[in-house]
Structures are given as structure tokens and as C-alpha cells.
């Protein structure tokens, strides 16, 4: 099976280094209050991962800007979600 990294490798991005457009508001909520952690399997770019300690890490470089993580975090509302600055983020070649 193709790994998600290989898929994302085909895409074009202009990463806004040091300025993540999405942030986890409170890491403790993910670690303690959220059992399912749907962001770790629903994100189509695999941006979210759970580490050994049950904490959720987020790397937005491969983000496709779909909004999934924000919508599925409905109960906890723990995702601070903005679009990247103008001109940054995913640049679809075909869309």
C-alpha cells in the first residue's frame, strides 16, 4: 500500500515555516479527555499522530486545508483552525 507520505510528495506546497495555520489549543485535552482521537485517522494528509504517551502531535506541512480535523473535533473544540497566510500552504496543480 502506498504510504501517505508518498502521495503528499506529489503535491506542491509553499510552507510558511514557523507559522502553523492550525494548532491544538490544549494538548492536555487530547491526551486526557479524548479517547478516540479521530484526528489521528481521519485527517486525509495524516498530519496528526499519537505518541507513546497518548499525546497528539500535529505537523501541518502536508495539510490539504480541507477542514476535517476542525469539524471532527466538535465535542472538544480543541483545534484552532485558520487558513494559511495568503499565497502559502497547498498549491493545487490540478485540483
Amino acid at each position, binding site marked *: 500500500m502506498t504510504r501517505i507520505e508518498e*502521495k503528499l510528495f*506529489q503535491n506542491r506546497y509553499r510552507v510558511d515555516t514557523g507559522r502553523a495555520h492550525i494548532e491544538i489549543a490544549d494538548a492536555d485535552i487530547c491526551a486526557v479527555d479524548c479517547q478516540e482521537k*479521530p484526528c489521528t485517522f481521519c485527517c*486525509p494528509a*495524516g498530519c496528526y499522530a499519537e505518541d507513546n504517551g497518548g499525546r497528539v502531535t500535529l505537523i501541518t506541512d502536508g495539510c*490539504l486545508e480541507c*477542514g476535517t480535523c476542525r469539524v471532527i473535533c466538535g465535542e472538544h473544540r480543541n483545534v484552532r*483552525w485558520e487558513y*494559511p497566510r495568503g499565497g502559502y500552504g497547498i498549491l493545487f496543480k490540478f*485540483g
Partner: protein
Amino acid sequence: MSEHFDAIVVGAGPAGNTAAYTMAKAGLKVLQIERGEYSGSKNVQGAILYSDALERIIPDFREDAPLERHVIEQRMWVLDDESYVGGTYRSADFSKPPYNRYTIIRSQFDRWFSQKVRAAGALVVCETTVLDLHMDGNQVVGVRTDRENGSVYADIVVLADGVNSLLARKAGFHGELKPRDVALAVKEIHFLPEQTIEERFNVKGTEGVVIEMAGKITQGMVGTGFLYTNKESVTIGVGCLLSDFKSRGIAPYALLEQMKAHPAIKPLLAGGEMKEYTAHLIPEGGYNAIPPIYGDGWLMVGDAGMFVNAVHREGSNLAMTTGRVAAETVIALKAQGKPMIARNLAAYRKALDESFVMKDLKKYKDIPDIMDKHRQFFTAYPRLVSEAAHTMLTVDGIDKKTKERAIRKKFTLARSAFGLFADAFRLWRAFE
């Protein structure tokens, strides 16, 4: 950027482009703001373009729009693990111009559309993200962008910022999307030589084929898959309700991989080179999920307003139509010298109610709920239909009457006679 405009349009998808184009053409002073590098660079769709909605604003679009193939054949497949049962409609009539629908590549098509918007006289500013709306009491009076001194003002702001509709949410015009009101779709584009596509899909010239799929490929989730032929590529994708992805714990890219490996699909992609992987939310909540779409100083168009007919896979035409009707509302108010307040802008909603947009959405208003509550349409039925076809088409010395009895028994075992009747009734009611 401290000028005052007649209208600001946020976003440059089909809804925003249509609104900006229509207003600019009528002589309004229009500013369109797009966060992408160019119009189209943030936009994702299957994509099918329905000619009608575009024709109404740019009648001669066929002369220079980047169109891929005109669709002459539509296949509907219901897939099981190893098989599919399907129907095909192909007509030479679809090859007589003017063509009714085309496959398109959105980044190219939107870029072309944007040129028309500029030519009509609108000021199009790219690489600029709108952060929030400027309010004067309840009245939207402008937008704040991420540019330096980036506030701009207008009599009306048209929100064409897509399914996530962040601006209206921040302003409190509506709440967060519900996972069951949106489908998450993932898609890849695979490049193949033109000749290979022609041979593989039995088409010539700019003829193209569309395959819509349901069944096992969504692994019991409410959703569909698709495969569209472009000139030198095919796009393949699958979308399911986000609430289903969440409750089932299925990764969307894994679902797509599994679908691509299906024995009926794999040969269609063989030898292709994957060049882009995309994801997008599709508003599928239907009529009941439509938020307020107008207010003091603002109108909402396209995906932001949930204008997608999920049953017929129509979205971009609803986007263009809502964009046009919104623009016409603004133009009329402007001509009458009336202020852009909710009471006057209600004409937008009224015009949509009388158009195919709301009529169609209203007609299918119960479908999302039925599909969500009655999973058999995505689980038991595809399997039963496939087994029935397999039984009838296997020549093994068993008489057809016995085979029919066996099939009927399988159906009633799976759903009971009452269940079958109830399902038929549900569908009839919902589609009536």
C-alpha cells in the same frame, strides 16, 4: 487598500467568480479577494462542469475555456468485493454540440474564469487571506485581510469562501459544521497517454466517460466513488460522510487505496502516473442544513451556503447559479438605490426558492437522513444484488426458478419481507 467598493467577493471558486463577473459586467465596482497564488490554486472538485449554469453568464465559454472531455457515457456501478453490477447510458446524441457536460481540471478552469472576471472589470487580488469581517453594529461593512493596512470596505460582502465558511462562523452567522452534514472526499489524478484512454474507455476525440460507484468500496459508510476521464488523465476518488469516517475509524487514503485495488478498477488505472492527491469536504446536509444565507451587508453563495445536490452529484452548477442570483440581487438593489440590508437582501433567498436550486434541494431534503439511518442501502443491498446477478449468470445445471427462489430467500433473510417493502417505500417517498 482603503478604497470603498460596491461589492467585495471573498473567494474565487465557481460561486465567487460568477458573482464577481456578473456584478462587474453590470458596471459595479468589484473587489475579489483570493487566498491562493492564483484563482484555482486552492480549489478541488471531481470535476464535472454542467454547461447550463455557465452558459447563462458566458454563452460562448466553449470557445476558449479549458475543457477536458465532453461526457457521452455514464456508468453506474454497484461493487462487491470482486464484482460489480452496473448500468450504462451512452448516447451518440451526447456527441452533438453543444455538449451538455464536460470533465474539467479545476485549477485550469478557474484560472480561465478568473481572466473573464478581470476582463469584466473586477479587481482581483490573490495571495490574500481574509481574516474577518468588519462590522458596524449588525451591518457588515468590509473585510480585514492579512495584508498590511489590509482593511477594505464595501456596501456588500459576498461570502464565497467555500465549505468551511470560516468568515460567517467567526461572525456568528452560523455554527460549526456537523460531521454528518459533510462528506470527506479524497482524490488522485493519474496521467495516461491520450490513446490509452481512448482505447480503454472506448472513446474518440474529446469524448469522455464518467463512472459513479457505490457499494463495498465505501466499507459500509454512506458515500460514493467516482472515476472521470480527462484528456490525458483520469481522476479517481471516493467520498463518505465524515461522521462515518469518525465512527468507523477508517483512514480516507486507505479507503482510496482499497478502491483502486478493486479488480474492476485497477485495470483502468494501470500504467498511469499519479501526480496529485487532494482532499475536500463536500456539504451534503442538503436543504435542512442550509444556514442563513443573507444578512445586513452580506450574502452567502456556493459551498459556504451548503448548496450541493448530493443525490445528483451537482455542486458547481448550484455554486454558479447562487453566485449569479446573488449578483443580480445586488445589481437590482443598487439600481433602485436601496440599502444592502437584510430586509432588501431577502430577495436573494426568494429568487433561489423559486429556482431549481432550492426546489431540487427541497425535493431531496430527507435523503441524507434516510441514508444515514438505513445502512442497508450501502451494505446489504450491494451484496445481495451482486449475489443475485452471480447466481443467475452462473450456468450450473440448476433451473432458473430454483435460482430465483434462492435469491428471494437471501433478500428476505437479509431484510425480511417487511424490511424490503419499507425500504422501497422509504426510497419512493424520498425521491418522489
